[in-house]
């Protein structure tokens, strides 16, 4: 039976732990907070301890690091050094150099390092990636990524999300950067311009926009997590070239290519999963992690470190 250690029993653990239990894994949790510790212990009926040092971590096949991002580096370093495969919620760390160091340590220890960019497993993103591949190389095009939500407003109390080093850039922006790398396989992106502002947070950005380019294609990113009109996090991706326009709002994809038009709805995509909670992508993500480990195929998420570099560049610019 796969032994999995979940480090951090906060809200996101409620999404991951049921999937792990449903997969038949033996799950243990580290959680310093009393309330979350009681919830995990009594709700899931699993072993919960206060500190990482209370466990002999080397017995675990996999650890899920679900703590605030500024703690990822130290926790991951300890786990990787004990030869434990790690899945780290995004972003990998809050510094590009720390993320690169984690990749180096994982390679050195011969363990896998996954990151929680869950949109990669969303049926619409998988379909979009297929469509982009199907259309083939485009001479010139521009892509825009926009994410809006309403999670930080006047009633929001300060948390790790609204601290310096995170903000909308680390929280939503990292998803957008990752999707650009994942869908378009782009590399060597250079920051052209960036702007951002605080709306309700005092130490972090609530809104930002940035343009990167690889010399040929322009990638525009925008995110605002204090958008009053957003019911829930919405993501829109649009690709434009002289011959083709592709747009998705994660429920459907519209394609106009050389005069022809078509639309694909999410209900036409393959969405079957053994166990569903919050979205197929959560099940598919953990399934990928567990299958990779079962097959003994190593995996190092290089893109996650590239994303952190992009975040650092924008932060430095703004």
């Amino acid at each position, binding site marked *: 039976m796969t032994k999995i250690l979940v480090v951090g029993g*906060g*809200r996101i653990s*409620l999404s991951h*732990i*049921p*999937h792990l*239990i*449903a997969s038949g894994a033996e799950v243990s949790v580290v959680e310093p*907070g009393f*309330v*979350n510790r009681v*919830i995990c212990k*009594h*709700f*899931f*009926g699993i072993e919960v301890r206060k500190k990482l040092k209370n466990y002999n971590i080397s017995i675990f096949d996999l650890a899920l690091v679900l703590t605030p991002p500024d703690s990822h580096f130290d926790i991951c370093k300890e786990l990787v050094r004990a030869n434990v495969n790690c899945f780290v919620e995004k972003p990998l760390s809050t510094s590009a150099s720390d993320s690169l160091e984690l990749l180096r340590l994982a390679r050195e220890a011969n363990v896998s390092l996954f990151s929680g960019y869950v949109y990669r497993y969303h049926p619409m993103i998988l379909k979009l990636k297929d469509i982009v591949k199907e259309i083939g190389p485009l001479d010139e095009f521009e892509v825009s990524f926009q994410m809006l939500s*309403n*999670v*930080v*407003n006047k*009633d*929001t*109390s300060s*948390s790790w*999300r609204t601290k310096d080093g995170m903000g909308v850039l680390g929280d939503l922006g990292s998803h957008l950067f990752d999707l650009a790398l994942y869908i378009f396989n782009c590399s060597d992106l250079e920051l052209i311009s960036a702007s951002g502002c605080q709306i309700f947070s005092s130490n972090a950005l609530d809104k930002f926009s940035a343009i990167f380019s690889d010399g040929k294609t322009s990638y525009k990113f925008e995110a605002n997590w204090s958008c009053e*009109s*957003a*019911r*829930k996090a*919405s*993501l*829109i991706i649009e690709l434009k070239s002289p011959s083709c326009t592709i747009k998705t*709002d*994660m*429920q*459907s994809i519209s394609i106009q290519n050389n005069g022809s038009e078509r639309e694909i709805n*999410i*209900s*036409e995509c393959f*969405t*079957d*999963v*053994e*166990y*569903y*909670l*919050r979205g*197929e992508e959560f099940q598919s993500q953990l399934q990928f992690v567990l299958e990779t480990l079962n097959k003994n195929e190593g995996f190092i998420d290089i893109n996650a470190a590239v994303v952190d570099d992009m975040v650092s560049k924008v932060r430095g610019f703004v």
Partner: protein
Amino acid sequence: MTIFFGDNQFLGVNHSGGRSNEYFAAYADKNKVLRTLNDALDSGISDFSFTVSDRTVGAYLEFIKTNPEVNLHPCFPYAQFVNNKLTQKGTLGYSLELAKKAGFLSILKSLNHYFLFKESTELMKVITTVFTSEIPSKNLKSLSLLNVFVDLLIGAGRWDILIGFIQACRELEVEANFYTMNPTRLMETLWANGRNADVRITFNFNQKGFRMNPNQDIVMETCKRFEGHKITAMSLFSGGDNQAFKFVENKSYIESVLFGSSSKSRIINNVNKFRALGF
């Protein structure tokens, strides 16, 4: 056989992102919600299912003032609402807010019962009260747990909490309903050996098999085995409007349907077609 009128359109749920925010903005005006509810009532619908949220409760309370005969079927907890609260107030802050609403004594009593006797009926009664205290009992016909919570309990193997909710509903003399994206697991466990036949289960059922987990064939096969139980089909139109009616035709195990719409003509058309099929 019942036709339930849902409220996804009021909350912008399950619509394409752009339209989702459009619907959400359009129904910010309570009068528009009331107009759509009256359209549904005019079409002959008397059962109204809705998610308990800041936006909906006030509108439905006003709706029943002029239409005291309608049946209300509140659903909770609304994931988006709870998620926003947790982000804003933190786990402890939101727990304290709920405890205040329920009454600290009731919470203490029910938690005591839960930890001492491992029995969750009292706790579920308190939670139910927190979410539905404003709804008059004469209109309250069922209480529903929404799929995020139900599926979380299924994944965690906490069948005892689901049973606690069923028991709480029986004591409150209302029907218990569960929304789920894992219908096979839920039907197999809850309804096994003739148990809990009074409980309703509501899930996606459409021609394309969209979000019918683990897959459409298995879900349909399981439904057949539980024919006679309270099975409500939702998201019927995910397979396309024209196919929806054909797809439920002759599927005698589908006991009722749930749909929502913002267009009066569409509501009337759907109701007429469902009625023609025997719903």
